[in-house]
């Protein structure tokens, strides 16, 4: 009878869901501790998720850097790094998690150097996320993790989508997955499960990330009883290519802004004005992602945008010779480091050539999920045996990510891999409950079996319509209420009756996979809209035009969402404090800008 519920079954000590920046180190460290580890990845290891696309930069404080033989900075310290992160995250971060981040940032770097990660450059001053650490390549990083996992003999199920978690008496005891190639349903029995599934960027039409990031981890954790935190905190990256279409979604202009060329670039509105002088006259275009994103969108809202709804990234004033010189410098840097990434080698020269005669159009893309599955400093969720590491987790950054995510995911991966062995040693495998297996099987198969219902592409387009209209950088109460109502309806009434309209094959049937992903994306969006609606203030990267100030007296609290009979239910919770007291009073937008960019300006002053 069980045979009808799944096609294959596997058993392991730890199931790691997701194979990249967080999943790799989780698996490697759990295997080091002697556990039997299985990775399931929706893509192929080293070729999926956001990690491969990262710049990438790895942060650590200057003093720890020196201890590793890197050209760090004595004036820096773990304490100072900690304080910058808490203050610039506007105090919503869990301070115990931030302490662990700082501690494990150095360990993560040491691991990666030991495993052969190249260092292209070391940047000394904390200037938002691109400094206080190593500049390298995301592709090289994930390939190194893959090599290490292979050396250790870790099994990876590739092109395998985990659909739901299984629990027994409230503890995680495995998961059900869909082998995307064969269409087989796979039962995985595990003593513990670590979610390393990344963000839900695909719920937004204009995003910078990879196609596999659809909030599956957050949604399945929610269904299994775990809580979410900071779901309203979505990081947008400004200066993402809108036009020309071949370059759409590339963050190359943003990356250029972070290099030596940055100060030469001008961001212009539709009237040819360098608008950043009205928002952050000190750091101008070099301001934080959040501030440039808010400023760009305010320009668009005021009718001063570019034809495709963004702003202009202008280099023309440098003259063609100047632009060739810039490209020459880039090539030098790339050659020095043997960097072959096609975004730099092919797309960048194409764009620079264009930039000689026209300004590029750039806009705000959904980039990084600041919130996610609520965990503690050891990556534990509230569900025993269930852990979450990397971008799918929440609680570390507070209201804005001001340092490296690649460091976060590596550090939390290592912590998860070190934490779960103790738990695994204390529990036996639990037999999954038949009723749960039946329910998951039914969820998976229903879209293939229904003869009519909602069309997945239509639901996808409606979802994009909602995110495009209401869930933007600048939000307001009315729009958020509309977003919440429409998303709630879409999830409950439409996503529950999706059906595959074309091929009924179980092999590589993208329309079918989309049905499963839509439920997850809609749930994440709904939770994000709910938390955004509740937060009646602006903070960090979160901006409400109806409450354009930071209100520490009322809102220095986190929005935590739990599962009440299947529906998201929100409560407010004070951040975990260790050594930095929470602030009081109100800050205007201008004051918040000054506070959020403090370490950027300190860098300028202190640089010898």
């Amino acid at each position, binding site marked *: 009878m069980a045979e009808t519920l799944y096609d294959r079954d596997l058993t392991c000590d730890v199931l790691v869901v997701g194979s990249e920046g967080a999943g790799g180190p989780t698996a490697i460290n759990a295997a080091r501790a002697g556990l039997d580890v299985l990775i399931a990845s929706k*893509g*192929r290891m080293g*070729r*999926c998720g956001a990690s*491969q*696309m990262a710049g990438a930069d790895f942060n650590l404080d200057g003093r720890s850097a020196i201890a590793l033989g890197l050209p760090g900075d004595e004036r820096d310290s773990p304490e100072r790094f900690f304080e910058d992160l808490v203050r610039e995250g506007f105090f919503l971060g869990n301070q115990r998690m931030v302490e662990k981040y700082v501690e494990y940032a150095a360990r993560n770097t040491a691991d990666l150097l030991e495993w052969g990660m190249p260092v292209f450059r070391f940047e000394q001053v904390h200037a938002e996320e691109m400094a206080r650490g190593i500049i390298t390549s*995301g*592709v090289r990083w994930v390939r190194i993790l893959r090599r290490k996992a292979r050396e250790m003999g870790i099994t990876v199920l590739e092109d395998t989508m985990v659909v739901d978690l299984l629990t027994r008496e409230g503890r995680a005891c495995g998961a059900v997955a869909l082998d995307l*190639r064969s269409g087989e349903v796979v039962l995985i029995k595990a003593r513990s499960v670590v979610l390393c599934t990344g963000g839900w960027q695909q719920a937004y039409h204009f995003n910078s990330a*990879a*196609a*596999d990031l659809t909030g599956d981890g957050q949604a399945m954790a929610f269904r299994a009883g775990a809580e979410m935190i900071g779901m309203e905190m979505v990081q947008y990256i400004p200066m993402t290519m809108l*036009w*020309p*279409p*071949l370059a*759409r*979604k*590339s963050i190359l202009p943003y990356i250029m802004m972070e290099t030596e060329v940055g100060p030469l670039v001008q961001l212009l509105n539709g009237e040819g004005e360098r608008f950043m002088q009205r928002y952050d006259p000190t750091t101008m275009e070099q301001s934080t992602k959040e501030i440039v994103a808010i400023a760009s969108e305010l320009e668009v809202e005021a009718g001063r945008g570019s034809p495709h709804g963004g702003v202009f990234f202008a280099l023309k004033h440098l003259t063609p010779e100047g632009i060739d010189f810039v490209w020459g410098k880039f090539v030098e840097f790339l050659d020095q480091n043997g960097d072959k*990434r*096609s*975004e730099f080698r*092919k*797309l960048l020269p194409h764009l620079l050539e264009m930039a000689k005669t026209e300004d590029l159009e750039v806009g705000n893309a959904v980039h990084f999920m600041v919130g996610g599955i609520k965990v503690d400093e050891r990556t534990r969720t509230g569900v025993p045996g269930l852990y979450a590491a990397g971008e799918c987790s929440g609680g570390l950054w507070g209201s804005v990510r001001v340092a490296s995510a690649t460091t976060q995911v590596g550090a939390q991966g290592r912590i998860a891999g070190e934490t779960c062995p103790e738990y695994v040693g204390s529990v036996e495998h639990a037999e999954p409950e038949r009723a749960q297996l039946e329910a998951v099987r039914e969820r998976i198969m229903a879209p293939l079996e229904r003869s009519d219902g909602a069309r*997945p*592409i239509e639901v*996808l387009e409606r979802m994009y319509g909602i995110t495009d209209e209401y869930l933007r950088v600048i939000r307001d109460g009315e729009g958020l209420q509309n977003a919440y109502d429409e998303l709630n309806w879409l999830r409950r009434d439409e996503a529950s009756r999706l059906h*595959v*309209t*074309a*091929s009924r*094959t179980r*092999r*590589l*049937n*993208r*329309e079918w996979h989309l049905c499963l992903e839509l439920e997850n994306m809609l749930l994440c969006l709904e939770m994000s809209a709910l938390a955004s609606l509740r937060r009646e203030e602006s903070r960090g990267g979160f901006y409400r035009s109806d409450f354009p100030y930071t209100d520490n007296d009322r809102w220095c609290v986190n929005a935590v969402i739990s599962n009440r009979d299947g529906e998201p239910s929100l409560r407010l919770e004070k951040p975990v404090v260790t050594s930095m007291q929470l602030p009081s009073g109100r800050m205007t937008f201008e004051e918040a800008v000054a506070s959020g960019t403090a370490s950027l300006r300190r860098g300028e002053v202190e640089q010898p």
Partner: protein
Amino acid sequence: MTRPTIKVRCFRYDPETDAEPRFQEYQVPMEDGEMSVLDCLRHIREHLDPGLAFFAGCHLGFCQRCTLRVNGKVVLACETTAGGDMDLEPVNADEVIRDLWCGST
């Protein structure tokens, strides 16, 4: 305003049900004047034929999983401009799981 369209001939094959591969032709409007081959495939899947199997990953040349043949030449669909009518085929027809998706990519 009528937008210019191009003819895209796609390799279709399901080794489990089809005796042999065939080509299917789609008319794809060049929405923005400039489109990548991957954008064309997405257009087909979203508007014309949700059953077409191909891989779309990072869109920017990192994952390299959208490797296929455009008019015989092996390229990444995401970084190739769709210029005029084209034939799309899998890298290796012997390894096809379905349509343009090969076991090795």
